[in-house]
């Protein structure tokens, strides 16, 4: 059997295959032959730099039929779609934030091949349950939804740990997701930060100085607000990615200025946003 036929057979049988397992797909004539064969049966080759897999999906001619529904085709419902969006943000969006790291000099690229920057992210079922139970139902319901998405190859991982599956990249349009984050989530976060920074010091028990808060202090207030107004040191340290020793000083100054109230002691200490 020729190379293109074998590749097509594997792709149709498995849905997605690791790129490294199909070295012949590098050869332009083989790739063109594969694409042509797939096109004959209403499929197209699916590739993204963000995935180690290459897969197939239905061609636009097939999907353009008005009766065609992408979710029904994938065998998933509304709740699955909602869960997919959340999992995408947690598990694969971090790859898209790479551009901010400094680039290595030329000689460094020669001596040390650029290393895989991205460590696969995990999403514990517990976290999903804590954040989404009100929207998607109890633990059993979320487990069922996850299980279906695992069967369909959108997710992987076993038991309580959810990992990215090949289709989370190949079956979800990254541009649409990124566009949604840029349009909706980032402006909301920016708005919150602006509000935190411009927060006047006129609150109950606060000092009279109306100096906008900046830097770590503003971040601490923003995180407290997002956590429903209360958080423990461990959470703050993890989210802000700053050591507890440093945060303790910041929190003390926020407490003195009347922005934050502390309850509990030692391990049970919690910090609360003072409501104006």
């Amino acid at each position, binding site marked *: 059997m020729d190379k293109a036929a074998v590749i097509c057979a594997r792709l149709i049988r498995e849905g997605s295959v690791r790129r490294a397992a199909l070295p012949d797909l590098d050869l332009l004539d083989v790739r063109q032959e594969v694409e042509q064969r797939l096109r004959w049966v209403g499929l197209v080759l699916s590739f993204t730099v963000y995935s180690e897999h290459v897969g197939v999906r239905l061609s636009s001619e097939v999907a353009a039929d008005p009766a065609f529904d992408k979710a029904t085709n994938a065998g998933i419902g509304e709740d699955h779609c909602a869960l997919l969006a959340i999992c995408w943000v947690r598990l694969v969006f971090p790859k898209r934030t790479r551009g901010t790291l400094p680039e290595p000099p030329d000689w460094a*690229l020669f001596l040390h091949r650029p290393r895989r920057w991205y460590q696969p992210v995990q999403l514990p079922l517990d976290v999903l349950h804590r954040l989404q139970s009100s*929207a998607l139902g109890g633990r059993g319901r979320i487990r069922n939804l996850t299980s279906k998405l695992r069967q369909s190859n959108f997710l992987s991982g076993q038991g309580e740990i959810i990992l990215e599956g090949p289709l989370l990249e190949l079956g979800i349009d990254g541009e649409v997701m990124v566009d949604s984050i840029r349009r909706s989530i980032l402006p909301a*976060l920016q708005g919150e930060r602006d509000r935190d920074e411009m927060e006047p010091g006129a609150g109950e028990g606060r000092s009279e100085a109306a100096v906008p808060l900046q830097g770590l202090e503003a971040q601490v207030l923003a995180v407290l607000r997002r956590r429903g107004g209360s958080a423990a040191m461990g959470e703050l340290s993890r989210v802000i990615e700053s050591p507890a020793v440093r945060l303790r000083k910041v929190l003390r100054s926020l407490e003195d200025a009347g922005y934050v109230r502390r309850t509990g002691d030692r391990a049970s200490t919690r910090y609360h946003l003072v409501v104006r």
Partner: protein
Amino acid sequence: MKEKTSSRKTEPYDPLPPDPDRRGWNALAGWLAQPAPEEAPPLAAVRELEPLQSLLHALAGRSARGFLIRSAVLEALVQSTRPGFSQEDLDRALDWLTGPVRKEVIQQLHQVGWLGFDPDAGHFLTEAGRCVYEMLAFLRQLLLEGNSLPPAIRVVRLALDGGLDPLGPLQSLRLRLLGLRQEIDSAMATYSEAVLRRTAERIGSNLKHSDEIRTLLDMVQDLSAAREVAGEIRTLLARVHGASAWLAAAIEEVRRQSVPLEAGLTLEDIFQEAARRSREELAAVGRAALLPVFIPPPLVQTEALIRVAMSRLPLSALRPPEEPES
């Protein structure tokens, strides 16, 4: 010559590291599976490199700055193109060093044997010194060219034009092509537009030599081993060409989808904000982003089914039920 004075305090120069373990070829037996090192072809092939150990040891020294100074001194002495140096000539060629450091470096170079002294000619660069300089020049060229193909192509051409066995040079060319192919994968795994672009430029400039490589490969006819490697090079060249198309698509994709995080914003913030959205909003986003995926049809092959069944079920469950005795 008047010493240059500097208001800065001169730091002590990098002393030579302690003498390395001088045991070499004759002391290898303790580490080998066979009694004689000659019986291991890779070891036999590198035997003549033994004298380089002391040269490299003296060159590397203890610190990078000492290494840079020694390399620069060699560079200065070679560039001056003199066969020998009086003390004054040396001072002039190395006047970019402070007096005490210059003195120590020259002493050190004499000590390691890179500089010699002849009463008539003065100080001169020895064979060992020239050897180290040439090694450095070669390594510098390698750093500049990376996995680039032209040096390997030149060597293949030299071998073919001179009627020499081209197998070694062809293998080197194949390795470089393999390196280029791996470079593409490594660059793609960084998700960095800058790295991807630079890799694409490097690959593109190397692939300009494809026709030249193909012409050379057509000239390889005699040896079957060399012909086999030539065939592999043709395939690899085609693979690098094809993979560079992945690279072009990757650059465009990364350009459109990169989201640099502004100062203070974390991935956790974004996740928490997304998780706060309503089920309807999340479902709408997920649905809009969903592509028409292809779900593979379940294909059952009898042999595979039996294999899975045997691995999962107890043997008793697979036996046909016994016929009741009539």
